[in-house]
């Protein structure tokens, strides 16, 4: 970074500072674009003179020498806004870097690092080659992470220095500011990437996903609600450019659906959407309520990774499985011709059940049910590692009161609010149209922070 550059800048004379110090507030452009916090900082700044050149420069053109002033005003106005925006960006990035460094567990990482370094320096290290390899691998990983984290810090500090220098020197060097702005842009990209790898580091996060939606308490209204959610997730999947398909749909009697299953093929589908698992609650004036009263209904959403068959290397002993069909009642066999090949599979030790109805033969439903069951057990095993048993047992989503993860209020006001993250929006139409990214991101961050706290 060139300090020289700054020095050779000619400070702009402070003439007419007093009489025009507030004139820039009359410039609507600047006023609207500037963040609020800096207004107050400017207004109550101890040292007004420091800002004088900037203030002066945006003063509306006076009658004298109009054309040249206008040119100058444009250039400076751009620079001023640019500077404000940049300063805001730097502040945000500073905060973000601090947060990331804190949530990445910097102290623990450093402790791990010295521990691993000691181990790797051990003369007996290579007596156990596989262990040695593991240690060295972990060491590189921790080292890389630390390096990245310190790079974030130095980068944001570099940008901060430029901002401070600009403030102190009462002048603007667009080349320098450009540099700072580049740094911030690049830094934010790296932070996004870092955050994503941190947030989506679960073993199945990079896989596709299977979303199962089932209507809960609330009768026909709930079945309609389940159908609306089906559309929402389908639209989301399409927007993400995932290969999205509805593989099973069981219609409701009057309207909507009893249940449906969507498969999403594509990178990180499971990582993003897995947080949608839970009960979703709607409040509205139900079209299915004859009195037009406000009604609350629920739908359950379950999410499983879409794992390739060969990766499901879970062996389930046959005696651990209880398979049944929903062909209850009646004599069955030759007496009945109903292509009711639906299979329900219960994993006795865990109590986990899956149902598969979409295939046309019983065997095909059994095979599919088994692979879903395996995927589910894998997820549970993973959750078991990370959380408490009671949460695992709560795996079957209860679509009823007090269990919801998100509320969708259509009436008397419009609001979608996530109970876990408190993230909310009043743009319910966009959400129902599959705009879920902000909710998903908020949850991923929330989950990450939680996991850091428990560690």
């Amino acid at each position, binding site marked *: 970074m060139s300090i020289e550059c700054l020095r050779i800048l000619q400070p702009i004379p402070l003439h007419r500072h007093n009489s025009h110090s507030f004139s820039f507030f009359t410039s609507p452009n600047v006023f609207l674009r500037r963040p609020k916090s800096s207004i107050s900082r400017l207004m109550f700044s101890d040292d007004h003179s420091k800002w004088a050149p900037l203030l002066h420069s945006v003063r509306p053109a006076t009658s004298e020498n109009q054309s040249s002033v206008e040119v100058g005003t444009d250039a400076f106005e751009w620079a001023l806004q640019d500077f404000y925006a940049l300063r805001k960006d730097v502040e945000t990035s500073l905060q973000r870097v601090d947060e990331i460094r804190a949530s990445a567990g910097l102290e623990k990482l450093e402790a791990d690092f010295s521990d691993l370094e000691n181990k790797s320096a051990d003369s007996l290290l290579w007596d156990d080659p596989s262990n040695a390899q593991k240690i060295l691998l972990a060491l590189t990983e921790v080292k890389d992470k630390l390096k990245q984290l310190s790079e974030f810090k130095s980068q944001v500090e570099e940008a901060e220095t430029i901002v401070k220098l600009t403030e102190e020197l009462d002048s603007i060097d667009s080349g320098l500011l450009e540099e700072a702005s580049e740094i911030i842009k690049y830094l934010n990209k790296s932070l996004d990437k870092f955050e994503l790898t941190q947030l989506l580091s679960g073993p199945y996060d990079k896989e596709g996903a299977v979303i199962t939606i089932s209507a809960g308490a609330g009768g026909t209204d709930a079945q309609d609600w389940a159908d609306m959610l089906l559309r929402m997730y389908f639209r989301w999947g399409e927007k993400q450019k995932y290969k999205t398909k*509805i593989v099973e749909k069981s219609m409701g009697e009057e309207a909507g659906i009893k249940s449906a299953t969507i498969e999403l093929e594509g990178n990180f589908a499971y990582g993003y959407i897995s947080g949608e698992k839970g009960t979703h609650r709607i409040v509205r004036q139900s079209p299915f309520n004859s009195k037009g009263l406000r009604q609350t209904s629920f739908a359950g959403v379950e999410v499983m990774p879409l794992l390739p068959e060969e990766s499901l290397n879970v062996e389930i002993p046959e005696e651990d499985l209880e398979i049944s069909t929903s*062909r209850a009642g009646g004599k069955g066999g030759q*007496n009945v*011709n109903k*292509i009711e090949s639906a299979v329900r599979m219960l994993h006795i030790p865990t109590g986990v059940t899956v149902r598969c109805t979409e295939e046309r033969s019983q065997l095909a439903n059994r095979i599919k049910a088994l692979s879903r069951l395996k995927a589910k057990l894998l997820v549970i095993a993973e959750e078991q590692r990370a959380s408490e048993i009671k949460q695992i047992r709560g795996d079957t989503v209860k679509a009823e009161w007090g269990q919801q993860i998100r509320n969708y209020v259509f009436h008397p006001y419009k609001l979608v609010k996530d109970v876990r993250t408190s993230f909310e929006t009043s743009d319910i139409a966009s959400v129902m149209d599959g705009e879920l990214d902000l909710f998903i991101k908020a949850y991923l961050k929330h989950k990450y922070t939680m996991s850091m706290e428990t560690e």
Partner: protein
Amino acid sequence: MGFLGEKDMFCCLPICSFRFTCSRSRGQIRFCSSSRPLSITTTSAPLFLRPLSHNTTSSHLQTFHAWAKSLAFSSNHPDPPHLIRELTWLLQDATSDPHTSFLQLGTTHPIWRVPLRVELKELYVLWKARVEERRPLQYIVGCEHWRDLILVVRDGVLIPRPETEMMVDFVKEIDGSESGLWADLGTGSGAIAVAIGKMLGEDGKVFAVDLSQTAVEVAEINVERYGLKDKVEVRHGSWFEPLEDVVGKLTGVVSNPPYIPSKHIPGLQVEVGKHEPQLALDGGEDGLHHLLHLCEGCLSVLKSGGFFGFETNGDEHSELIAGLMKTRWSGQFRDVKVIADFAGIKRFVTGFKM
């Protein structure tokens, strides 16, 4: 098949024309050698095997779907949601799209071309037959998905039931099953025989026996479709009669014989009672007529230690047969077991000859 009156309107339909084709061929076949070609002509072919020579738009299909749905819900069919699932399967077979995604596309891409295996107007007629005549979907589309097979079925042949899928699992579990001689008695569409045939090794063989000429024809189609002509031999005749050359040599005998008591036939589900062949359902006064014959007969065709597996009308029938094997035929069978199907009904009796 005494239901032609209302069905005259179907004469123009391909799905119907095979009925006439096969009744004509039934006359000839008696004098034909078994080398007669088994090609399925386009008009009699199951829906999913026909060429995609028609087409329509996604919005037309969506209209059809909405109509079909409302017909299902306004009919007096006992289980409309089940009909809706069948509707999806009909559309799967009539198009080349297993996910019927044109239904979701109908709104956004209304003029998207969807290739069809029948004309759109025929779909309306077919669905009307399904809902109003209660004609089984399997006869309408001409196939049944069973285990990992897609079996051709048509009028005059019992539609294989999901329960029966388990029979193949029993055979699979028997040591040396892949190299033995097997018999599937009353094979119908050939379901069990084809499934066993697929598991057999070099020196294994299945005899698929049926009294019905239609069944023999359909079973041969299915055997050929799965390329099992050297593994499965379809034989025409009653129970053990066509097996005289292998008496005492069989590794196992399996059968899903007619087992519904005669008096229950009139009260059966319409799809079954009105449309499926009585020959494959009626088990005589108490429903045990053929089962008892099978128990008796398998003692002579099975080799020592040979396996048998029979499907029954459930619970008391299974218990009764298992009981008889310990009393009337005491000392001639061993390890007789009663096994429940996935709905919990004691559906099968299995065991071994001493």
